[in-house]
């Protein structure tokens, strides 16, 4: 079964389904797989969440008029006027009906005004609640971060490595925390000198002479989770063009430390 799941995840079918590029038969197949395998479902949901986030990052605000028109169209479709039949015999109670309509109109207006007030209050309360929720979320995140950080630094399996700058960048200093047991690497980049905007720091692992990318190092992010590379003999810090490189620019190696 494990192999089957692995095959599904690597087949590219989920990606095609996500992008709406599947046949109806493939749609049914994917929907069946999502139902059958929790791992496949979780994987797909994560993919959808990333896809949505990417979409939201690209957002372009449409003109307000589109929203107005949309809501107007929906309202119009629901409230098509219906003309009422009239006859002479009904005329005698028309003034009473008119009075009642006016009275109802006035009452409705008053109730409407009151309702508006209540809705406004409700909105304020909701906004306040949202702010509180947001503060709570932030505090929880902070707490989690502290816990994660304490756990990593306090773990006897975590080793601390200093990456001191060489002649190219004598003031540079970064601290790597490596936990081989949990396969985690965190880099404290706060003491690295600022770089021009067209350059980034990048961390590399040396595995039997081959440099493998451990990730970009953005000084402003402070503590960064880097990729753990199995069999790494050393960590090496280079200065690369902004966005990083596929291979390290060895002439820009500013620090390295053996693990």
């Amino acid at each position, binding site marked *: 079964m494990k192999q089957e799941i692995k095959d599904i995840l690597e087949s590219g079918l989920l990606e095609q389904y996500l992008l709406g590029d599947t046949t109806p038969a493939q749609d049914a197949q994917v929907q069946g797989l999502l139902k059958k395998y929790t791992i496949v479902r979780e994987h797909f949901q994560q993919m959808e969440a990333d896809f949505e986030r990417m979409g939201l990052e690209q957002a372009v605000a449409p003109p307000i008029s589109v929203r107005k028109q949309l809501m107007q169209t929906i309202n119009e479709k629901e409230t098509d006027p219906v003309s009422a039949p009239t006859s002479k015999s009904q005329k005698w109670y028309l003034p009473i009906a008119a009075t009642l309509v006016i009275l109802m109109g006035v009452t409705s207006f008053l109730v409407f005004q009151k309702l508006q007030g209540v809705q406004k209050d409700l909105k304020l309360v909701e906004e306040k609640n949202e702010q509180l929720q947001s503060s709570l979320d932030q505090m929880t*995140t902070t707490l989690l971060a502290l816990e994660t950080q304490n756990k990593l630094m306090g773990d006897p399996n975590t080793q601390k490595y200093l990456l001191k700058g060489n002649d190219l960048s004598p003031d540079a200093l970064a601290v790597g925390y490596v936990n081989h047991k949990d396969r985690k690497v965190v880099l404290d980049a706060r003491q690295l000198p600022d770089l021009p905007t067209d350059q980034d720091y990048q961390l590399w692992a040396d595995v039997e002479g081959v440099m493998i990318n451990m990730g970009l190092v953005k000084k402003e992010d402070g503590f960064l989770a880097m990729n753990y590379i199995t069999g790494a003999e050393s960590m090496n810090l280079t200065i690369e063009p902004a966005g990083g490189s596929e291979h390290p620019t060895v002439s820009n190696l500013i620090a390295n430390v053996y693990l």
Partner: protein
Amino acid sequence: MKKPSEIQLMLQVQKGNKLALGELYDRYSGALYAVIIKICRDEGLAQDVLQESFLKIWKKAGQFDPDKGAFYTWAFRLCRNTALNAKRNKKDLIQTEDLSVYKNREEPQNNPVDSEKLKGALSQLSEHHQQALKLVYFEGLTHREAHQVMDVPLGTFKSYIQQALRELRGIYKTSIISIILMIGL
């Protein structure tokens, strides 16, 4: 108070709640408009398509099934198809009306500012991954059409898409951990 999820909102839309549709519009119209406008390459047409798409969401709300995928996935497909159809119909119309004009009007140039500029994690992807995602996400191409544009075999193109989505995952994961650790200090 926690914001209702899109699934809760869609359940409300299925019951005819217009406010819920408005909320969905407020949350997602920007992201969907970005896709539509890049396919249509015409602001006026894109606005019509956006409105038409949300009308379809309103009318076809009953067809939405959260077990088959998230709201955004569903809405993205619906908007992309609506945009592709509108673009096709417009081309047909122009072609029928006046063939000599068609050549000049095939791709109107009144693109909104920044429509080509990629933002966020997408802009951090490797160039070939970026291009692959752009073709299927923004241009509305199928994998079969897109691999020809990139001039790579279909299998390679599929791998590009897979790798691109994994790269996105990596970027988002790293950014979340960095934020958490940064706030922790």
